[in-house]
């Protein structure tokens, strides 16, 4: 029988770790992921797990100990956020290129500067090209479920996995959760039995060579192939998980998309707010939909394009700025995936929620309104837009009107400015 409980996202991940009973956990405190090693070290202190818990002196060493432990033949995991992930950056690539199946919970938080402890996706987006699988979670339930699946995905693909959840929003927010029984989790993840590892009796192993140019490129190509091959594995593990729990996990979730005219693509907890907006607009007869992307790496290019091309206009939401002057990272990739289609919907980008800026149901109304305007005018206007930001460029109303004429919808503004804009 599933266990009905109430847990924060961090407590849920630590609970999953207890059930998985990993061999080695190396971790370092950083807000908002700190609670994961806190809760977990209590399980260690109470003798509920067999894990060697290494309270390291930095995130750099946290990932280094995971690399050493995983190469040695152990199941290794960790958790971090923000600057901690940034500090690990060099080693993320090494873990991936050594094909070490480490599982890490990334509790998403903005990057400095200015220093800010709240949620956005800058940290994991900064690591998007490191060769890790990246899975994003909307709710506490999802981060718990994803973390358990992540271990299996990592070990079957020999690619390390980041399970991402939104800092504070799900990491600290307590909500209802359906936990899986211990024996089922143990059975689901199984024993970690790598073919080759440093401590193997039969033969030694050398890990982490100097890869000169006659070899380096082939090694990278094999990594790219492994990432490609991980796609069916992610679906398989999702199906097996579904058989155990009844909960469905694929590359993305389509919400009210069957007959939608316009849609939003979003990752993480904001999808919940977006769904509420969809429900309310549907009640008014508006045919709006939402795609919640779960797997960002590998990027599900074809299926996502197929889902997006059902609508006339799509808003792609980025909780990270990439300073490319061409939109955020999700936008760049999602929009690029549409290129090969004979029919393409309009695709616009919103940078939103940076450093914990709230996104409300009303903000989603505005986005849907913009999408309808685009369809009506048959003109996308400025495709690279900001949501919920105070922008000094728009203080003068005359200037704002001129700007809006050429770049419709380019900025959404709060408070007094917003009222002025709406007049």
């Amino acid at each position, binding site marked *: 029988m599933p266990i009905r409980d109430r847990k924060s996202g961090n407590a849920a991940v630590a609970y999953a770790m207890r059930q998985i009973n990993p061999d*080695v956990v190396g971790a370092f405190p950083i807000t908002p992921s700190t609670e994961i090693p806190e809760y977990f070290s209590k399980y260690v202190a109470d003798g509920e797990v067999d894990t060697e818990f290494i309270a390291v002196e930095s995130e750099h*060493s946290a990932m280094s*100990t995971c690399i050493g432990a995983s190469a*040695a033949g*152990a199941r290794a995991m960790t958790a971090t956020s923000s600057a901690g992930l940034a500090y690990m950056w060099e080693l993320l690539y090494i873990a991936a290129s050594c094909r070490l199946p480490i599982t890490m919970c990334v509790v998403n938080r903005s990057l400095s500067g200015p220093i800010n402890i709240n949620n956005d996706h800058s940290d994991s987006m900064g690591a998007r090209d490191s060769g890790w699988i990246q899975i994003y979670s909307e709710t506490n339930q999802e981060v718990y479920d994803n973390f358990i699946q992540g271990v299996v995905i990592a070990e079957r693909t020999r690619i390390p996995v980041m399970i991402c959840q939104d800092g504070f929003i799900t990491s600290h927010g307590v909500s209802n959760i359906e936990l899986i029984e211990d024996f089922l989790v143990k059975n689901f993840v199984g024993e970690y039995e790598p073919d080759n590892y*440093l*401590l193997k009796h039969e033969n030694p192993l*050398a*890990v982490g060579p*100097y890869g000169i140019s006659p070899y380096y490129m082939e090694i990278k190509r094999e990594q790219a192939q492994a990432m490609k091959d991980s796609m069916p594995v992610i679906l398989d593990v999702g199906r097996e998980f579904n058989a155990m729990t009844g909960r469905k996990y694929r590359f993305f979730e389509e919400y009210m998309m069957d007959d939608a005219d316009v849609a939003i693509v979003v990752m993480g907890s904001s999808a919940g707010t977006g769904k509420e907006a969809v429900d309310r607009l549907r009640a008014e007869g508006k045919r709006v939909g939402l795609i919640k992307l779960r797997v960002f790496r590998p990027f599900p290019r074809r299926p996502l394009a197929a889902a997006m091309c059902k609508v006339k206009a799509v808003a792609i939401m980025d909780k990270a700025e990439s300073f490319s002057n061409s939109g955020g990272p999700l936008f760049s990739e999602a929009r690029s995936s549409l290129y090969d289609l004979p029919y393409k919907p309009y695709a616009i980008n919103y940078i939103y929620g940076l450093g914990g800026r709230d996104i409300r149901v009303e903000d989603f109304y505005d986005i849907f309104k913009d999408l309808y305007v685009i369809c009506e005018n048959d003109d996308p206007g400025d495709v690279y837009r900001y949501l919920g930001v105070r922008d000094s460029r728009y203080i003068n109303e005359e200037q704002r009107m001129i700007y809006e004429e050429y770049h419709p919808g380019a900025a959404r503004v709060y408070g007094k400015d917003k009222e002025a804009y709406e007049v």
Partner: protein
Amino acid sequence: MAYDLKKEVSKKDRLAGGHRLCAGCGAGITVRSVLRALNPEDKAVITNATSCLEVSTFMYPYTAYEDSYIHSAFENAAATTAGVEAAYRVLRRKGKVKDNFKFITFGGDGGTYDIGLQSLSGALERGHDMVYVCYDNEAYMNTGIQRSSSTPRFADATTSPAGADLPGKQQKKKDLTLIVAAHGAPYVAQTTFLGNMKDLSEKAYKAIYTPGANFLNILSPCPRGWRYETEDLAEMCRLAVETCVWPMYEIENGVWRLTYEPKKKLPVEEFLSKQGRFAHMFKAGNEWTIEETQKGVDEKWEMILRNCEISGKYKNTDPGKTEE
């Protein structure tokens, strides 16, 4: 157990020949000598920091190591070993690993004194059962002889060049051995290649088989960086020891012991004059640099003698035995 050089060198080499280190390089000797101290029946996992040693001994698809080996990055060798050692503890407990493994890390002075110091400090504090060996050649040789915090004062390095205004590096060499000792590591020692290698061999054995996170600092000269003839490697080490530039001592559970005392302490010129990196110190007008160096060496030597004396062990040392 009497030391027998013949017996030691008859052991199977755990670092195979054919690696790509330079002729006259100290790194290979350090590795081979330390690994020789392992009981032949024991297995080992060797960790490298990124270094000359790493790029010369594990160039894909060939490894020079008979044992399991891991390299991950420049600054994290100690933490990487810590992860391996933690895995060993848990997998042994679970009965998944039955062999007896020892964990030995090699890093250069750049990877140890500088960029890897935090990682080393963390591993020492946590007390993993491992040995960290610094093969100290006193500069970043792999990238082209840039100064490190281990480079001695006045040495000519590519980022502390000797010029018209500045006679080489301006700062003193960092004393890493003391920093490690301050962590309370069970066994800490300085050594180099001297005579029949008894000193190095015995220290390596103690470092490997004393439980806890132990440290060896091994002066490992580099012919490219120090600018000596490759065949003079052993002479460089001998002069470093005989001038007391590189004192040979150990700190075992807080007790200091001098393991070699020169019969007649030679002036530092004997060491400096044989190396191109100090050549500018012998130019007219730079005499003061040699005086300063001598002063620094004397002070450090006196400090070590005092500590050994305080430990009550100084009188019990057997100076000169190493040369047998």
